[in-house]
């Protein structure tokens, strides 16, 4: 039984239920089928049905068998992926306080160090500086787009 399919199916059911219940609170239209709640309710119901089928098929096909790991997990290193997701979120949060420059340099440095085969601080620093400068050049100088300033510097 593929655990991921089971989890995905259950999650889809939960999302479907949330949308269906929320749609029920929307005001009605003269013709119910053309009201604001109709389409989301229809889609949510279809999602719950399909998700239930997925859960059912997954449980049925895996009944009595041991859970199967996704083959991709064997060839992929999960830890750096989770770290990357975490530091991307931190980058987003940091930008709102310290703005573009510092947060981007630190983010780039972290990613570079995380993905290096052989540790080299010099390479990471140069990469970080280069990329930050390039992004600044493209967006701020060339395109005249504004970059995040950060509340600490306003």
């Amino acid at each position, binding site marked *: 039984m593929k655990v991921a*399919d089971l989890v*995905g199916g259950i999650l889809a059911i939960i*999302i479907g239920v949330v*949308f269906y219940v*929320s*749609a029920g609170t*929307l*005001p009605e*239209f003269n*013709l119910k*089928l*053309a*009201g*604001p709640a*109709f*389409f*989301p309710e229809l*889609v*949510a119901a*279809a999602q719950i049905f*399909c*998700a239930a*089928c*997925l859960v059912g*098929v997954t449980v049925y096909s895996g009944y009595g068998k041991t859970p199967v790991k*996704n083959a991709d997990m064997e*060839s*992929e*290193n999960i830890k*750096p*992926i989770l770290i*990357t*997701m975490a530091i*991307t*979120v931190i980058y*987003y949060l940091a*930008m*709102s306080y310290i703005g*573009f420059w510092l947060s*981007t340099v630190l*983010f*780039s440095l972290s*990613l*570079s160090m995380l*993905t*290096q*085969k052989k540790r080299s601080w010099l390479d*990471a620093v140069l*990469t970080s500086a280069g*990329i930050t400068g*390039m*992004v600044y050049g*493209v*967006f701020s100088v*060339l*395109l*005249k*787009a504004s*970059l*995040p300033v950060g509340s600490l510097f306003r």
Partner: protein
Amino acid sequence: MDAVLNALVVVFQPMNFALMILGVIIGIIFGAIPGLTATLAIALLIPITFTMSPIPALLLLLGIYNGGMFGGSITAITIRTPGTPAAAVTVLDGYPMAQRGQAGLAIGTACIASTFGGLMSALIMIVLAPLLAKAALAFSPVEYFSVGVFGLTAVFAISGKNLLKGALATLFGLLLSSIGLDPILPIPRFTFGEIELSGGIPFLPAVIGLFALAEVFRLVGAKEKDIIIHTDVGNVLPSWKDFKKIIRASVKGSLIGTWIGILPGAGGTIASYVSYGEARRSSKNPELYGTGIIEGIAAAESANNGVTGGAMIPMLTLGIPGDAVTAVLLGALTIQGLQPGPMLFQEHVDIVYPVFAGMLLSNFIMLLLGLVMVKPVSYIARIKKQHLVPIVAIFSVIGAFAESGSLLMVAFAIAFGIIGYLMEKYEFPVAPLILSLILGPMIENALRQSLIMSQGSWGIFVTRPISAGLLLIALATVITMLRRQLCLNKNCEGY
């Protein structure tokens, strides 16, 4: 005739011409680097086109589209790693040729075949699109609903290995598309009091997240392989005898690619597999396919680039993207204030014809640049993860911010990046999600307007012939794919 001449004048303006060349170069490079695709390149560069007027922006993006579809073949041939999924088939004959010291001929073949495919599909697009747009003027909301359902059904039925997962990805996208203000009554839905959500889920951060950031997460976890490069490219130009073989193989491939491109959801990958399979099946020497013959490369690459014009047809005429790349291009058009559909051909002929001219011209540019850029691109494709990952990640984040200057868009991009990564990892196809996000509002609007017209009767969808036909085809597609999947599970014969 005036429109055509004006279009050529516009396209040959120095800035527009330069942007097309730049687009092709960027497309070839992005296509060549494994993990990056034309879709990602367009998603990352859309923010850069905000400051441009529509024509230069579209010419740049079309250059990327055409260049990207060819670029994947360079690394497929030289380092046995397709730059794009659509170039996977090119490895079968391309790499054996490189091993024999014929990398140059293989790449020259790929370039010529790609150009032929791109040109043929562009010409078909130029002929068919105005006709389809004219026919679509007579479409009512009923037909638009059926076209939308057909499009989405085709996408989820063809994408991925599991029909249920494809359906769930589609339905999830439709649910997300209903967030924001109701299209008919001005009341907020599922916004949870957040004013920023009243405009709905923003398209650009969703695309950047699903295609760019998700790829960053995947790249970080992927193992870096030791690569053997066949850089002794040698002569890239084929002999006259080989050239005739390429053209012969490319004719059928181009038509297959164009037709498959018109079908929503079926992109270059499916086209190249179908074309290669057909070429082998109809060959007098099928056993030679896979040993390193130019016909194999030509069949795959002509179909691969043949998709480009085909996919543009439903996108321009009906607002229904033919593949993931045109889905992103559709978003780019919308951001430029242009609404794809039959009215585009009525109100913006001054933009449509330059797009046509751009599709033709960028193929010629790709032919010239493709032959010249082989060696440098092979080396660029070896860019290390520690440099590639930060570049793509930061461009993605800042690109998402740049559209509206709001950090909330960055949050959306990151959320979609995580969703996109998890979906790919656990084999939930991403293409149906992005297509349903784009098509959802149109489908809902059309459905509700149709039901208002019919006073709540669903019969309106089956009593109108075009609508009935499309829904029937959609149903047949689902049943066929369901049977195929059930049979695959039980190892039936014939599948």
